[in-house]
């Protein structure tokens, strides 16, 4: 990159390869920075070569590879010349040829290295999603060939750093000060912005929780970069860009979003979307303790009192459960929920309920799934004796696997269930429980 170049590499022009346009809907036209492309009636591009600057955007965006770059004979001669000088077409040559703007961008991008995961904590206890992100972050860091760092902000939270190492972080930035005792947007945003300014990471991941959504937006605005919320997939392309995939248009398509001109690249991911990494006790990493802390007087928001959510201790949080066995009106009575508890125990899950079961007093209100209860997204949701009123379905339809057990084959729940069992749940559920326990025991014997 440092060696001087005499010849300017020609950029060529874009052209359409005959009979390959699929009329995808003007993607090339909308990608063109110089408005060199117009569309004909068949939805194919007409390229104005006077205007084309050879930026290759249209070629890249074309879903059918119907556009290519071509060079005039003079340009081709220069290209050949360069190739001779370089002794092969390597990327470094091309890179060196690019214009000053692009060079500046390259340099800016190169200034950012490393993958960060923001470790969200409340009262010193980390949100599970932060560990899940370390799993994803590790894969990203490996493809980028950089370190995976945890960012821990709080008061007396040093312990979280070693926990983060256990979950796979290689480095941890720790900001530990009384001002960070409770989450406050301003304090945390300033802290994170400070770290970004100082250490320049290329990727920052946060949980799409109340705190994460709040903080990510505030930070992205201040550092002037892009942010993709609620990603379901993250990977790295061959230009070190983070490919952020998320559902768009009401879940009908998956969009892959990239932030190729700004750094850091920021994304949030909902809980339970990514896998939980294995905890390796005793694994250690490098900890850098940072001293930055905004003066308390400058933070306008004061936390007067923290009021615990109704849940409290000893109550089951169905919103965070991985496996939920839910019962509805078809359970016929409170006593029959013991059967569901058995199944849930065998699976390592919890028992939920539909509104009618809660109304009938069979289950407490905090177990209610649905519009006026909790929205859940477990890996497995087993709906027992739940007909599937819309009010219930909107609370569980995003579960990975839905298994419905109902006597009525016409029950709407079967429309969204991945597996449906039409039958008497009083026979089906005990036999399921028995079979699962059997398998478990067999597995235990096997491993023993």
């Amino acid at each position, binding site marked *: 990159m440092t060696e001087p170049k005499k010849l300017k590499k020609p950029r060529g022009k874009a052209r359409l390869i005959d009979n390959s346009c699929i009329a995808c809907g003007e993607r090339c036209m909308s990608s063109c920075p110089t408005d060199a492309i117009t569309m004909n009636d068949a939805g194919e591009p007409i390229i104005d070569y006077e205007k084309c600057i050879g930026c290759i955007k249209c070629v890249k965006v074309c879903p059918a590879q119907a556009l290519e770059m071509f060079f005039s004979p003079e340009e081709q001669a220069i290209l050949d010349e360069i190739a001779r000088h370089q002794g092969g077409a390597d990327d470094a040559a091309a890179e060196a040829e690019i214009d000053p703007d692009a060079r500046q961008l390259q340099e800016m991008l190169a200034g950012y290295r490393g993958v960060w995961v923001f470790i969200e904590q409340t009262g010193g206890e980390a949100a599970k999603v932060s560990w899940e992100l370390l799993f994803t972050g590790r894969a990203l860091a490996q493809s980028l060939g950089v370190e995976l760092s945890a960012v821990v902000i709080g008061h007396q939270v040093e312990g979280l750093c070693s926990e983060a190492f256990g979950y796979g972080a290689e480095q941890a930035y720790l900001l530990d000060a009384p001002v960070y005792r409770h989450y406050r947007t301003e304090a945390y945003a300033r802290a994170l912005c400070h770290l970004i300014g100082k250490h320049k990471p290329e990727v920052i991941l946060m949980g799409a929780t109340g705190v994460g959504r709040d903080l990510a937006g505030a930070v992205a605005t201040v550092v002037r970069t892009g942010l993709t919320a609620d990603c379901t997939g993250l990977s790295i392309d061959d230009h070190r860009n983070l490919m952020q995939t998320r559902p768009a248009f*009401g879940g*009908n398509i998956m969009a892959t979003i990239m932030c190729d001109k700004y750094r850091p690249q920021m994304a949030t991911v909902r809980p339970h979307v990514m896998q939980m990494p294995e905890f390796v006790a005793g694994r250690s990493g490098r900890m850098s303790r940072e001293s930055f802390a905004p003066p308390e007087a400058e933070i306008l928001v004061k936390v007067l009192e923290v009021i615990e959510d109704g849940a409290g201790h000893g109550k089951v949080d169905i919103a965070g459960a991985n496996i939920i066995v839910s019962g509805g009106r078809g359970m016929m009575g409170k006593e029959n929920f013991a059967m569901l508890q058995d199944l849930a125990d065998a699976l390592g899950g919890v028992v939920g309920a539909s509104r*009618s079961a809660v109304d009938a007093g069979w289950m407490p209100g905090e177990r209610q799934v649905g519009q*006026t209860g909790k929205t859940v997204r477990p890996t497995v949701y087993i709906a027992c004796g739940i007909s599937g009123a*819309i009010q219930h379905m*909107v609370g569980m339809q995003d579960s990975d696997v839905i298994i419905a057990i109902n006597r009525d084959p016409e029950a709407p729940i079967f429309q969204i269930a991945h597996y449906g069992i039409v039958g008497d749940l009083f026979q089906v559920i005990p036999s399921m429980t028995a079979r699962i326990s059997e398998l478990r025991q067999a597995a235990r014997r096997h491993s023993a």
Partner: protein
Amino acid sequence: MSAQQLFFIPLFIVALASFAFSCYQRFAPLALCQDDDRFSNPAARLKKTLRYALGQQRVVKRAFGFNHLLLFWSFLVLLLANGEFLLAGIFPVLRLSALPGVLYHPLTLVFDLVSLLTLACVAVAAARRLFFPPDYLSSSYASARSGEALIILGFIAALMLAFFFLRAAEVALGLEPAAAWMPISNALATGLKGISVTALETLAAVAWWVHALVLLVFINLLPRSKHMHILTAIPNCYFSSLEKPNTQPRETFTHGQVFGVGSVERFSWKDILDAYTCTECGRCQDVCPARFTGKPLNPRQVVHDIKVNFLENVSLLKNGEQPRLPLIGEAGEGCNSEDALWACTTCGACLQACPVLIEHLPKIVKMRRHLVETEARFPGELLNLFENMEQRSNPWGIAPSERTKWCSQLGNRDFVTGTTEYLFFVGCSGAFDNRNKHVSVAVATLLDQAGISWGILGKDELCCGDSVRRLGNEFVFDLLAQKNAALFKERGVKKIITQCPHCFSILLNDYRQYGLDLEVIHHSQLLAELVAAGRLQVTAAKAQGQVIFHDSCYLGRHNDVYQAPRQVVAAATGTPPAEFTRHGENSFCCGAGGGRMWMEEHLGTRINLDRVREALGQGAQTVCVACPYCLTMFEDGFKDEKADSVKVRDIAEVLAEAMAPGR
């Protein structure tokens, strides 16, 4: 000047001044309140005043109201007699007896008879309050046997008795030339025959003074009691909403704006006039479904609380200070609890019941607006709803692209500008709720059979915004309404069919605030028309057992559509549907209106269960409804009552079945 004049004139002046001062104290502060244009179209207002104030149309809806009608008209007649009485007390020459006999004699007769009638009415009213008071006369604040009510009745009785004794004494003294025209006073005079002249003169003087003093005290009591309605009921009817109060005023969202009513002066002057006018008759309380099922809401108390709060805070407000008594807070006289405000289903039963046309509903929504928009304080369940409405424009947060799923079997049904006649505004329930999709399909099938040109907006349709508006989230409603209105204009929509009374009412009434004047028709109306015109010919009318029809609040009470759905059911089943005891304008809410559909019902008993039990009590085998919310509430209710055999059907489903014998 006689001694009587000497005492009476200063007394009269003091009483009048005190009355004027009380009125000033009550009415001048109305200027502190928000503006409300209630002066348009005087002719229509006058007509309303004649019907409801002078004609007492609402008052006589209940049998006992007839007693009030008699009292009211007696009062008007005796106003003349009492006017004469006061005037003559000051200028003794100004007496009706100075009129020629042909005028004076009949007047005398009328006064005599009407006074007796009044006395009888007062006796009936007092007996009702004392011996057989209906429940609804009492509230948490007032008892049916309240001293105030009895004092007023006592005053009226005293006035009548004093009147008779005065006249009888005058007749006995031979001072009354028209004695023959006073049957009652004359009879009383006969009884007084044995008494000496001095005693008669004393009796006359005492009767005169009793009459005079009671009258002056009575006048002064009016502005300071619930009998203020004697002064305000007529203007309140005049200034009442010319249209049914089924909408709420639009809010503007600009910087520095205050939203909703969190403090009493944020109400409009008409809201306060309403509160002054409330007579505590308790009829709204008697019909309120929330109150009926043990919720803390009582529309009568809401109105009363506003009045008490206004009077309590008025002196502070005049000085620009903060009110002392909060308008929304811990329940108590003058303060509305949040639970009470959230309990309202906006069913409009109170609006329908009020004899003096008080508009309870807009007041409750205005206070909800304050809670939602200024305080962000509302039942937790609504968070989900508000988010979904804002982000996905439907209550469940389902992808808009799924709005067309219900008609995927029917081919492309997009509304085409200039070609399609009717927009079928399917509504969120009709598009997303599995049960209600059947209704949408039934409506669509019937429209096709009748050859109606219809189309849908598909994924572009947004929620009409009924629930969020009634819940006080005017901001989100405004977003939805603006987008829908722009969409209707852009697509050239002129006529809309809805299958939901909530969509129907809000598109028809509320959207006018957004410059839309559309022909909106509920499917019941269109289907009834098509059946009547022979465009839908029932081929297989079949009896479905005992079919009963349930009036939806937003179809019936709020928009006066009562007959159309019944005609559809009658055509489909061959017989007119049976009626609930509470039907038509007295129908009982299913419990889902006003955004209650999206809330838990933690307080009191279930409204839908009350209605379901009523249906079961009447032996219903099929309940016909014309509203997706009612459909859901009834089905849930029957399941809860373990009465799964009772079917709940939309009128369109019943009709569609009768059209297709093959199925």
